[in-house]
């Protein structure tokens, strides 16, 4: 059973456009992480959010954790080809051991020049 639903599954945009990826669940998470994975490589952590309502910015990337800690979003402003990759959200449930992350199925983002 997949606890985290990501949408959309695939996103293709032109350089300079904005995009938003969503990560939703009916479960509450003690923390939520966003990773980016490129072909042939492992996921690389972008950010961790732990407080409901928290907003974190990483250059052109803005991450938001829902007030109820059940959902999150990733917004990229003025996307660049280097933003191309598979974006994964992963949550740690309050009832689980730390390190046991529940992953979403990912959103494949393609940014064309």
């Amino acid at each position, binding site marked *: 059973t*997949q606890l985290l639903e990501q949408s959309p599954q695939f996103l293709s945009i032109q350089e300079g456009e904005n995009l938003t990826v969503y990560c939703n669940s009916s479960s509450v998470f003690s923390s939520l*992480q966003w990773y980016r*994975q490129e072909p*042939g*490589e*492992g*996921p*690389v*952590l972008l950010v*961790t959010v732990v407080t409901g309502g928290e907003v974190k910015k990483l250059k052109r990337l803005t991450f938001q954790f829902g007030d109820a800690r059940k959902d999150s979003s990733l917004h990229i402003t003025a996307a660049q080809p280097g933003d191309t990759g*598979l974006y*994964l959200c*992963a949550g740690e449930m309050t009832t689980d*051991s*730390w*390190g*046991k*992350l529940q*992953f979403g*199925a*990912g959103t*494949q983002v393609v940014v064309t020049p």
Partner: protein
Amino acid sequence: DTAVSQTPKYLVTQMGNDKSIKCEQNLGHDTMYWYKQDSKKFLKIMFSYNNKELIINETVPNRFSPKSPDKAHLNLHINSLELGDSAVYFCASSLGDSPLHFGNGTRLTVT
């Protein structure tokens, strides 16, 4: 300089064979993990070791046996390989509940 390294990168083998994947981390982390990524890119945890002690053991067939000789190494042995075992296997490590650092994966193909 690779922080979490896995070998081999690719593994092609026939059904019924036994194979091992090795993982080493040089980050000084105390917890190591094995995750499986299927063809739809869905990542699911299999095992976790903290200071050589098994702390997470998901519903994984008994054919999969992890071994941690020390804090820096976590190997995965798979017996009697099946077609459905084909996937990318990722090793990861962390220090306590800090974020995970993933290796670059081992693509296992069972024919």
